[in-house]
């Protein structure tokens, strides 16, 4: 397990980044255990709020030591009432955080060329991953995409981190006119990639997995499923995933994920109950 802690975290800085807002908060316990791919669950609405459930955000970075020691960063996009409440917070206020949560991106055992693919704010967890891969001597290519230019995230940081980045937008308002998967095959061939990492909307993750498979390499993707608890106790966040034994089960994306091997996720069955799932036969009348 990820050894999560619950912390009252002072907001150190709030900064606008395109359509998104970047939070930097003081949470030394969360920062201490951070690995790329971890997320935090943030309480919203304040004390006695009618919003009971925490909101999940991928960690964009953590600084366990040195200047700004004990801070973590995450990126918030406006969605519904919970994220809107968060977007009204300012520096000096506090947030209630639980983290780090989830299973992080698996790291290659030695230097291995990798392509990282981020969709929208999904680029956020890939930045610390890129740093970790580079530190381990792995060549890294990065593709950053979004529907339109203002929804891009992290292209400048990615460029600074890696030296180069390929940008795509569905409407052609920035970079290549098209989807991340249009440029992915070239990127894989370009670095002779042994692994692809991705975070973004589910259809994108599925498509990235398909491309990786045609190149006979693995894609490690971070999914986003609605979560009630974020810590593994409620079973709301499940996905149908094929196991080592060949049998498929509903796995909790908050604990066994959010990072999964794309080839193991039964994308076509997300949101349904396939007959061959372990235990589906016991569901009469439910």
């Amino acid at each position, binding site marked *: *397990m990820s*050894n*999560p802690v*619950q912390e009252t975290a002072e907001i150190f800085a709030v900064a606008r980044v395109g359509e998104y807002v970047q939070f930097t908060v003081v949470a030394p316990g969360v920062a201490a255990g951070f690995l790329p791919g971890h997320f935090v669950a943030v*309480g919203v609405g304040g004390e006695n709020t*009618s*919003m*009971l*459930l*925490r909101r999940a955000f991928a960690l964009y970075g953590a600084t366990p030591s040195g200047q700004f020691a004990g801070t973590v960063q995450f990126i918030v996009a406006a969605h519904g009432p919970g994220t809107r409440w968060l977007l009204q917070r300012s520096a000096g206020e506090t947030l209630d955080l*639980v983290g780090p949560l989830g299973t992080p991106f698996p790291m290659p055992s030695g230097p291995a060329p990798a392509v990282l693919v981020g969709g929208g704010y999904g680029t956020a967890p890939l930045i610390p991953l890129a740093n970790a891969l580079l530190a381990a001597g792995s060549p890294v290519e990065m593709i950053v995409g979004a529907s339109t230019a203002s929804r891009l995230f992290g292209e400048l940081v990615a460029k600074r981190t890696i030296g180069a980045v390929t940008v795509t937008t569905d409407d052609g308002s920035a970079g290549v006119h098209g989807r991340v998967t249009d440029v992915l095959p070239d990127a894989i061939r370009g670095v002779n990639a042994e692994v692809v990492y991705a975070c973004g909307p589910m259809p994108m993750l599925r498509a990235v997995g398909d491309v990786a498979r045609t190149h006979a390499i693995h894609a490690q993707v971070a999914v986003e*499923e*609605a*979560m*009630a*608890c*974020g*810590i*593994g*106790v*409620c*079973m*709301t*966040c*499940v*996905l149908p995933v094929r196991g080592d034994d060949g049998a498929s*089960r*509903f796995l909790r994306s908050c*604990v066994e994920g959010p990072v999964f091997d794309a080839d193991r996720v039964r994308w076509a069955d*997300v*949101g*349904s*109950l396939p007959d061959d*799932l*372990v*235990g*589906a*036969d*016991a*569901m*009469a*009348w*439910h």
Partner: protein
Amino acid sequence: MTASLATLSLPNPVLTASGCAAAGRELHQFFDVAALGAVVTKSIMTRPRSGRATPRMAETPSGMLNSIGLQGPGIDSFIENDLAWLAAHGARTVVSIAGGHTDEYVEITRKLNGNAAVSMLEVNISCPNVESRGQVFACDVHASSRVIGAVRRAADPALPVFAKLSPDVTDITLIARACADAGADGFSLINTLLGMVIDTDTMAPALGGVTGGLSGPAIRPVALRCVWQVHQKLPSYPIIGMGGIRCGLDALQFILAGASAVSVGTAVFGDPSAPVRVLAELEAALDARGFASLAGAVGYAHRAPEHRLGPDAPQAAAS
């Protein structure tokens, strides 16, 4: 602050709620599960169950809907892994059992007999009865009574059997009475209320299972009313109260209404250490009101006005 539930005595009255704490392991990262009165495990059935399709959750004002469908590993794996882990960590365990027909409840009960790790059985009868076209046991006096009677006969005589009732009935005291007559040693009140949400973007039900169980503070007044009514009708039967408990004063309301212990469910999702916090707050609240023991507070709100005379009355009234 000892809590007594039929023959079972617990060091304190705060428990987890079934399905809101899995089997304790994850919460143990936030607090020592042995510090609770007991861990109530997710309802278990004979075979592994996949649970329902997603989405399984929708947040609602001060509540949430869930439509998990009792996903679980099946009783054998549960005993070998979960129960063993709980015992190894010194937790007292209330095992919640579920079934699609009476024989399934009995089969699970037999598998748990003689297992020292089990402190109590909580019988979740808010399940569809396969033999009755999916009608929920807890909504029918005869089906409730049949299951509870069968479990009571099959279980170790020393093991308390609590019936967990659904509030989705016309008169919960009739179901409670039937369960008591069938041998229930006490009650867990309440399970979730059936509800639904429609997504106005897709214009379809928000949950994969269409309807789901409503929990959280939104249901607290309903839960409290159920505890009140059952305690009034059956004052000698211990009750584990639950439904939207978020703080010590919420728990105190249930105790005053007649509960001998409480379960903290949905609050855990917002605050993983809610059960130990509720316990500390409840202890302080009882203390502040002069209750020397938990027993003195159980059902206190039922007393006639002249027997509850302000902050100093409890000790006097208890004597």
